[in-house]
């Protein structure tokens, strides 16, 4: 009976519901709807594996000790820390903590919470094992002072502390919820976690007591929309306020970006990223056409870099001159001169000098799936054909390509890296240190004591100016070895409705903070 009553009432009230929709618009103006491609995997620092959706929510619900300063993200600022000093040997970090901050559940924030959070992440989060294992000791000096001691000097540690995995959690909430903490995350951040519905949405509400002042929005709804064209249509029809490119090559095609730029209801925010996409050689291979550095150089000169940027990306990507992007604080300006120029004649000559007959090469060009990777692969394939090399494109899913790469079963592959912490270490060490050749993300560099020593020294030097010089040297040394052809760096692109204001797009990690965002 109840059903029929409800049904009857529904029929009668339909026109009223339409009126109700108008009343909602005031609420909608205070609510930001963000389109995301999938559910967050983990909403808490103890298990987060740098997956973008969960990481961004963590940065809005929790705070870290330090964060990169908007809008250019070249300097660190204090968040839960007000200041810090690093010892001369680079192993000790002393933090002064902010007074009077409370977690969203009312627990006061103090040094003990910092110690608790970081030790917890160290114990439970395998993703940051490599860096968190450097932590020898965390000691509470006073409620507002904490001292972190590392086993070795690691200046990039401050960047690591700005990561979502290093966010400070409420010890009381962790104790209360136990292993259900990820479903009930509690931090000190500008937004409070409200609810999550599988494959549907995650809802955050404003934290009125936030220590930097209450956010201007009253609510954030992360809507899960897996299909890229649906995300675009939702943005155009006003169903969502923000669609993020997330730096993924396959998110929205260049022609769609052009179309959205022409839509007056939509704003397109672009910013340089630190992502590098490259054609990489299997540098560990002792035989094959590319064992000779001249042959690798030939390939680097065969590629029409500017043509690729204009033809395939229509200006949504930038040139990369070497192992670091030009917006990195450690970028060596000399790399612009050292970078190989497009010169097919020189490429052919180099092949002759290397003693390689291009017609004898039958290359498999591995690449990820997705139309944009396909376009890049086709472009490179055509460039290689110009110097007489026949390449077939093999577009492979991410796990399968990784398996091929870690086992070394390739000559060349299109690949890339998106650094998650704002430090040259994120590109250089993992990419080029020979001892890491068999790990998942690398150019598979052969043993090379000079280069390896230089990389480790640059990683560990704490004087930032000296460190920068070392990275200058590292870049030149790597370029001499031609481990790959650096193709392009896609810009980070965020699409918003025209009335969204105050958003600053961060480059490493490419995650947005919504504290300052509001709708007109």
């Amino acid at each position, binding site marked *: 009976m*109840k*059903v029929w*009553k*409800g*049904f009857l*009432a*529904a029929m009668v*009230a*339909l026109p009223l*519901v339409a009126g*109700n929709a108008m009343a*909602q618009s005031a*609420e*909608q103006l205070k*609510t930001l*709807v963000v389109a995301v491609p*999938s*559910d967050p*995997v983990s909403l808490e620092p103890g298990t987060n*594996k*740098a*997956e973008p959706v969960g990481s961004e929510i963590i940065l809005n619900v929790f705070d870290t000790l330090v964060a990169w300063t908007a809008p250019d993200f070249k300097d660190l600022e204090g968040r839960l820390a007000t200041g810090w000093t690093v010892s001369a040997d680079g192993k000790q970090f002393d933090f002064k903590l902010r007074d009077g901050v409370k977690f969203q559940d009312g627990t006061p924030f103090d040094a003990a919470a910092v110690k608790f959070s970081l030790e917890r992440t160290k114990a439970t989060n*395998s*993703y940051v*094992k*490599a860096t968190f294992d450097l932590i020898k000791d965390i000691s509470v000096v006073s409620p507002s002072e904490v001292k972190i001691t590392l086993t070795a000097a690691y200046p990039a540690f401050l960047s690591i502390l700005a990561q979502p995995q290093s966010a400070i959690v409420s010890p009381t909430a962790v104790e209360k919820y136990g292993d259900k903490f990820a479903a009930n995350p509690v931090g000190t951040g500008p937004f409070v976690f409200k609810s999550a*519905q*599988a*494959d*549907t949405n995650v809802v955050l509400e404003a934290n009125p007591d936030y220590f930097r002042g209450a956010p201007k929005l009253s609510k954030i*709804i992360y*809507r*899960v*929309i*897996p*299909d890229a*064209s*649906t995300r675009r*249509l*939702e943005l*155009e*029809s006003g*169903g969502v306020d923000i669609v993020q490119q997330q730096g993924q090559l396959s998110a929205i095609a260049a022609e769609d970006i052009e179309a959205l730029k022409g839509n007056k209801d939509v704003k397109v925010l672009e910013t340089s990223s630190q992502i590098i996409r490259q054609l990489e050689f299997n540098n560990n291979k002792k035989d094959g056409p590319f064992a000779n550095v001249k042959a690798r150089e030939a390939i680097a000169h065969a590629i029409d870099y500017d043509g690729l940027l204009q033809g395939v990306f229509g200006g949504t990507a930038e040139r990369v001159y070497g192992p670091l992007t030009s917006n990195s604080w450690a970028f060596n300006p000399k790399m612009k001169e050292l970078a190989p120029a497009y010169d097919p004649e020189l490429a052919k000559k180099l092949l002759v000098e290397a003693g390689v007959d291009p017609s004898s090469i039958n290359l498999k060009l591995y690449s990820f799936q997705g139309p944009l990777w396909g376009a890049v692969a086709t472009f490179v394939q055509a460039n290689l054909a110009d110097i007489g090399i026949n390449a077939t494109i093999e577009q*492979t*899913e*991410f*796990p*399968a390509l*990784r*398996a091929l790469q*870690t086992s070394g079963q390739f000559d060349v592959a299109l690949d890339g*890296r*998106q650094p*998650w912490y704002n430090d040259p270490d994120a590109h250089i060490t*993992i990419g080029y240190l020979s001892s*890491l050749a*068999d*790990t*998942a*993300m690398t150019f598979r560099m052969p043993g090379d004591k000079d280069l390896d020593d230089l990389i480790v020294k640059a990683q560990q030097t704490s004087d930032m100016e000296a460190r920068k010089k070392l990275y200058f040297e590292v870049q030149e040394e790597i370029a001499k070895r031609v481990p790959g052809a650096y193709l392009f760096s896609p810009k980070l692109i965020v699409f918003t409705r025209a009335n969204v204001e105050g958003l600053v797009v961060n480059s490493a990690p490419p995650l947005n903070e919504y504290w300052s965002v509001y709708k007109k």
Partner: protein
Amino acid sequence: MASFIIRRLIALIPVMCIVLVIVFSLVRLIPGDPAVTLLGPGATQAQIDALRAQLDLDQPVVFQFLHYVGGLLQGDFGLSLKTGLPVAQEIVLRLPATIELSVFAVMVAVIFGIPIGVLSAIRPNSLFDHITRVVSLVGVSMPAFLLALILQLVFGTYLGWLPVSGRMSSFITAEHITGFAILDGLLSGDLAATWSAVQHLILPTAVLAAFLAATLGRFVRNTMLDVMGEDFIRTARAKGLRRADVVLNHGLRNSLLPAITVIGLKFAEMLGGAILTETIFAWPGIGRYMFEAIKNRDYPVIQGTTLVFALLFVITSIIVDVLYGVLDPRVRKKMK
């Protein structure tokens, strides 16, 4: 009849066992390592090895299989590799959305498809017949994603009449009772939620129903034409029965039997088609769950969802067989 159903249900066991073996081995033949996918770019080999050990992936496949079957017998579908949540619970959470969508789609398809087929058949080669034949040809051949995109563009973006995607407005917090959004809305007397659920259901239903309605229309037209040429129809006409009586009671009733097989088979197919439709419309159902799982190499989820799809398929075919018995006395006799 009861013994027939019981026999069919018992026959279900070996079928499901075969499905289980096939799915288990096929899933492991997909190239790529779930541990690599889960850890993403930048993971070290040590991390990958540790995770492989944690997930039993370093064990022999036979061991993994026995372990899995052992769990299944206790109703344990395993834990999702991606989220660490129990797969059975995750499937139960998403099943209502898929069932709601496919049941509505079948209803819409039957409501449109059968009358169109009948009307075309009683006036073959009329203008109506020509139009419906062209339309149904388009319906059969148009890929679902294209139809979805057109509907989203026209009704969502340009006209703004219907939501582009989702199952419920983000601004409505609906009560969760049965998991069926419309029913929950009615049960809790929440009109806004009910209305929002109906609005969100229209476009995905149309996409799923289009193919079935078109297939059904063409099919019913053809069988009706055959049946209307039979001797017993001439007899019925000769007895002086009203035209409607002849068409509905004699013609349609005899054409419906094969149509039910088509509906049954297509319904099961539709559950598979839901993978695409659910992904495009951001519909939180089991098809999309499976799609994500395949992308992530989430073995337990792929296995669990495939088993559920297989089970639904088999159950649908049993229901079709039973309906045959209900509609056709000759079949009923054989069942005994």
